[in-house]
């Protein structure tokens, strides 16, 4: 087991299997089809992301450098949360970007029964170490255990 320490953006404790994107996550391209056509697994629809394309994002510990793309990104993430198709948590190697932060904060403030803990600033070493399917446990203080 390896432990990484990041910064808590939105708090929560959860254990889930890792899903890793080494490139930036294009939120709109990744979630749109799933939200549009009722895919409860939130299968990633971004053909430009070979790490995630075709994989289930709902319920996964999504590990990524940052999100990229359209400024609809935050509201798309908010909708994924409202429709209960969000990742179990989002773990950023870099400082969180403004679009992902918007989505996480909107869900935290405006949705009553949804939690999607977000930790950022975990560093490149985290993203180099973590692999799809590893078990990830995160704690309120930003500690991330990878097993």
């Amino acid at each position, binding site marked *: 087991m390896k432990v990484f320490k990041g910064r808590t*953006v939105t708090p929560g404790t959860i254990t889930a299997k890792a899903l890793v994107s080494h490139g*930036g996550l*294009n939120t*709109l*391209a990744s979630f*749109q*089809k799933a*939200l*549009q*056509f009722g895919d409860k697994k939130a299968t990633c629809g971004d*053909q*430009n992301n070979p790490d995630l394309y075709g994989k289930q994002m709902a319920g996964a510990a999504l590990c990524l450098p*940052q999100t*990229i*793309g*359209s*400024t*609809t*990104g*935050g*509201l*798309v993430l*908010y*909708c994924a949360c*409202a*429709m209960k198709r969000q990742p179990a948590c989002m773990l950023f190697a870099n*400082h*969180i*970007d*403004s*679009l992902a*932060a*918007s*989505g*996480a*904060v*909107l869900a*935290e*403030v*405006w949705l009553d029964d949804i939690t999607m803990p977000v930790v950022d600033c975990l560093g490149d070493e985290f993203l180099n170490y973590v692999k799809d399917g590893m078990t990830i446990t995160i704690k309120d203080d930003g500690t991330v255990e990878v097993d």
Partner: protein
Amino acid sequence: MSMILTPDQQAILDGQKGETLAKVMKTLVMFGEAFGAEKMVAVTSQYNHLVTSFGLKALTPVYELMEKLIAEGVKSGQKFSADPRPIDPNVPSNILQNFIFKKFMYSKQDYYENQLEKLGLMDKDAFTCTCYMSEVGNKPKEGDILSWSESSAVVYANSVLGARCNRNSGIMDIMGSIVGYVPYFGLLTDEGRKATWIVRVNTSQKPEAQLLGSAIGMKVMEDVPYVFGLDQWLGDTLDEKACTYLKDFGAATASNGAVGLYHIANLTPEAKKHGEALIAEGAKEYIIDDAELERVKASYPVVWKDKNAKPKLCFMGCPHMSLEQLKSWTDRVEQALRESGAQRVSIPTVFTAAPGVLKEFEKTSYAKRLKDTGVITSYICPLMYMNNPLCAKMPVITSSNKLRTYTTAKYYTDDEILKEITKGGAK
């Protein structure tokens, strides 16, 4: 919460102006704190601009949130424009595609436009991603603080107009207008506007705007680049041609990466005012020559099922075309058709522009000339058209690197587009 608020801001947060406004303020404060913002600053632009213009069924939670705001009597403190409408009967689509558009995708369009009107839409034609065009009228002044979203508009406002705006997400954009404040961090600060990349453009000819922007966006991601070498082609004045080039260049930097601000040596306002003092210590360097642009172009995946399929549709205008572009492209299409001995374009071709720009274009003699070539004009958002899965299966070509990034459309340079749509046209 550690942000220092003014008494007015604190009163809103404490719920003295209602529970809903308190939640709006809490959202903005939490958002700012994620970036270490220590204060909120007043939004000073006359108008806002929102990225969400489409009544997409998948975004029902957004409309529910908007409904909550409207029900509480909340209004935007500023009128606003919004991104383009998603559907236009002028744009070719078959029965099945229309069925998907109307029944599954944009079934909430009328409902959402009604919400926008209640919240403060500028006017019924204020739907475009290029709200800053003179014909539209949402052009902020240098130094204005904005709460805009729409990545291509934000990067233009910051870079070409010298306004100050972070890359806000949809919903967060209108929240800034509602309370009248935005958190002070990133591109709102002098420090955040310093360039951490030096880009040297050493190409043998004027680079394609959307290809150059793509290369820079993919390299610098969300950082600020200071670009040398472009002024030799664009000059040192922000005339209509230069602004049009920078519109397309910026959209590609913002969509292929996450650029919110760029500086062009000797051209953009802050670069002219402060020069190389805008470059941060330790800035990285990226040199772009012909080979690098060729490498970037070759790296784009072609996601058509039949990679050699004959294109069935061509989109130009993502972001929306300027009046200058509509005119110059009319000349180019006419000339290319003459050279190929054809009268009309051989592929259904759609030029998109803001409703206000199209109105002005219609007043010129160019409008009839363009219509005679077979090119269709529209106010649509090509991206929203391509999001229809049945449209996504079509081989569509575009010179927009933004459209390429978000959809299955294949990127062609402007010259390649011209050749493709005019060769072998109807005699």
